[in-house]
C-alpha cells in the first residue's frame, strides 16, 4: 500500500525501481537466453548493468523525492549505462513517464494511466514498432489498454497492466518479428518469446508487487 488515498508516492517509485533491479538480477540468465535464441544474447546483461547502476544512484537521491524525480533518475541512468536497443527505449519510456508524472507528490489511478501511456508512447515514437512486430510494444500496449480500463484503484490498475503485459509477452511467441534483431531471422523467430516483452512484463509485475 502506498500511503493515504491509495495514491502511489515517491517511495513506491523507489521500491519499484529496486524490485525491477532484483527481478532482473534474478532472471538475468533467462532474459539473456531468450535473446540468444532470436537476438544477440545480451538482454539480461544489459538491463542488469542498468538497474544495478540505478540502485547506486538511488542512494544519493533525496528522501522525499517525487515519483517523477525517481522515474527521471531511472531514465537518465538507463540511458547512460544500458546501451543496445533496450537502453534508449526503456530510457525514453521512463523519461516520458517522469515528464507525465510531473511535480505530483503521488499518482492516482488516472495519473498512473497517463504515466504508463506516456512511457509506451515514448517507446513507439523512438522505435517505430507497431503492435504485432514482436517487440516490447507487444507487452506495453495491452498493458496500457488494460490499465485504462481497470478503474480507480491504483493496485487494480497495476495488476491489470502486469497481467496484460504477461499475456502480451506470451503472445509474441508465434510471431514473425518486424523490428529489432529478431527481424533478421524471418520465420525462424517463430516459437520464441521476445526478450524485451518479457522484461516489460517483469517490470510491470514488479510495479504491482510493491504497490
Amino acid at each position, binding site marked *: 500500500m502506498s500511503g493515504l488515498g491509495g495514491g502511489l508516492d515517491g517511495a513506491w517509485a523507489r521500491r519499484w525501481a529496486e524490485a525491477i533491479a532484483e527481478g532482473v538480477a534474478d532472471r538475468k540468465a533467462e532474459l539473456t537466453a531468450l535473446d540468444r535464441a532470436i537476438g544477440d544474447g*545480451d538482454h539480461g546483461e544489459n538491463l542488469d548493468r542498468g538497474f544495478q547502476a540505478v540502485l547506486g544512484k538511488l542512494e544519493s537521491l533525496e528522501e522525499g523525492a517525487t515519483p517523477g524525480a525517481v522515474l527521471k533518475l531511472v531514465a537518465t541512468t538507463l540511458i547512460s549505462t544500458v*546501451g543496445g536497443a533496450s*537502453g534508449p527505449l526503456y530510457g525514453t519510456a521512463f523519461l516520458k513517464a517522469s515528464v507525465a508524472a510531473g511535480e505530483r507528490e503521488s499518482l492516482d489511478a488516472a495519473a498512473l494511466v497517463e504515466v504508463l501511456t506516456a512511457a509506451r508512447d515514448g517507446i513507439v515514437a523512438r522505435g517505430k514498432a507497431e503492435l504485432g512486430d514482436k517487440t516490447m510494444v507487444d507487452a506495453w500496449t495491452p498493458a496500457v489498454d488494460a490499465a485504462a480500463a481497470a478503474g480507480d484503484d491504483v493496485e487494480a490498475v497495476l495488476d491489470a497492466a502486469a497481467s496484460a503485459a504477461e499475456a502480451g509477452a506470451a503472445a509474441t511467441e508465434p510471431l514473425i518479428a518486424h523490428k529489432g534483431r529478431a527481424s533478421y531471422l524471418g520465420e525462424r523467430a517463430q516459437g520464441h518469446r521476445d526478450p524485451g516483452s518479457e522484461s516489460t512484463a517483469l517490470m510491470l509485475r514488479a510495479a504491482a508487487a510493491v504497490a
Partner: protein
Amino acid sequence: MKKLINDPAKTVDEGVAGFAAAHPDLVRVVVDPPFVVVRKDAPVQGKVGIVSGGGSGHEPLHAGYVGYGMLDAAVPGAMFTSPTPDPILEATKQVDAGAGVLHIVKNYTGDVLNFETAADLALAEGIEVQTVITDDDVAVKDSLYTAGRRGVAGTLLVEKIAGAAAQRGDSLDQVAEVARTVNSRVRSMGMALSPCTVPHAGEPSFELGEDEVEIGIGIHGEPGRERIALEPADRMVDRLIEPILEDLPFQQGDRVILLVNGMGGTPLSELYIVFRRAAEVLQERGIELARSLVGSYVTSLEMQGVSLTLLQVDDELLGLYDAPVETAALRWGR
C-alpha cells in the same frame, strides 16, 4: 567456453587497455565515460571528424581503424551492445575541430538510437553532426516496415573511403556524401561454420551440427536466415556471391573491390581458398577486380566463417581507397 580472458565482465575493459598499450603512437583512450579511442592528434585542425562505434566483439572494428586517413574516434560498447550516448558525445567533442563531425553507424536499432541521442546532445552543444547509416547485408530483406538491412563488413570500406575524403579536406557535406555513395554501392553476405560465445553469456549463440552451417549470419552471433549442410568452399562462395551480385546489381564491366572477411576464428589459408573462387566468379561475369582485401577485419569473436563484400568503384572512390591510411589494422602509404 574456452577463452584467453580473465573475467567475463572485464573483457572489453582489458581489451581496450591492451589496445591503448599497444598503440600509443596512434591513439589515446578516454576511460570516463567508458570508452573512447581517439586518434592521437585529434582534433585535426580544419578536418571533419569521423566517429564510429558499436558493440565490442567485432575487433579490429572500430578501434583498429582509428588513425590518419580513417576514423578520428571509435566508441566500443559492451560486448555486442551499442555504446550509450555519453561516450559517443564525448568522442564527438574530442574530434570536432570546427568542421563538423560525421557519425558512421551500422544499422542496428541500438546503434541508431544511441547515436541519435548523442547527435542531438552534440548539436545542443553547437557541434554540427551528420549521420550515415550503413546497411550492406543482402541476407536481410529491406523494407520500410522492418528494421532494415544490417550494417556488416562493408562498413569498413565506408570508413576507409570517407576517412580519406575527410583527410584530404572535404567538407562535412562532402564527406557524408562520399560515405553514402559507398554505402549505396557496397553489398555483403556471410556464413558461419561455428557460433561464437559472448563471455558473460558463457554459452554459444546457437548450436550447429557437425555438418551444418548458417547462411546469412550477421556479426553478432545471431543465427542466420538458413541452416544447411556444409558444402565445398566453392559452393559456399557461390551461395554468398550470387545474392550480392544480383542485388545492386553488379554488371559486366563494373570495377570492384572484393573483401573476403574472416569472422574471427577462420584461418587465413581458408580465406584465400574462398578468395580464389570469388575472383573466378567475378572473372566469369566480366567484372573487374580492382582491389582485394583478405583478412579478419569485421568479426564476431571467435566465430568460424566468412563474409564476402563487393564495392563497385570508379576512379574517384578507388583513389580514396588507395589514399594513405595509418591505423592499427589497416595501413598503407605511410
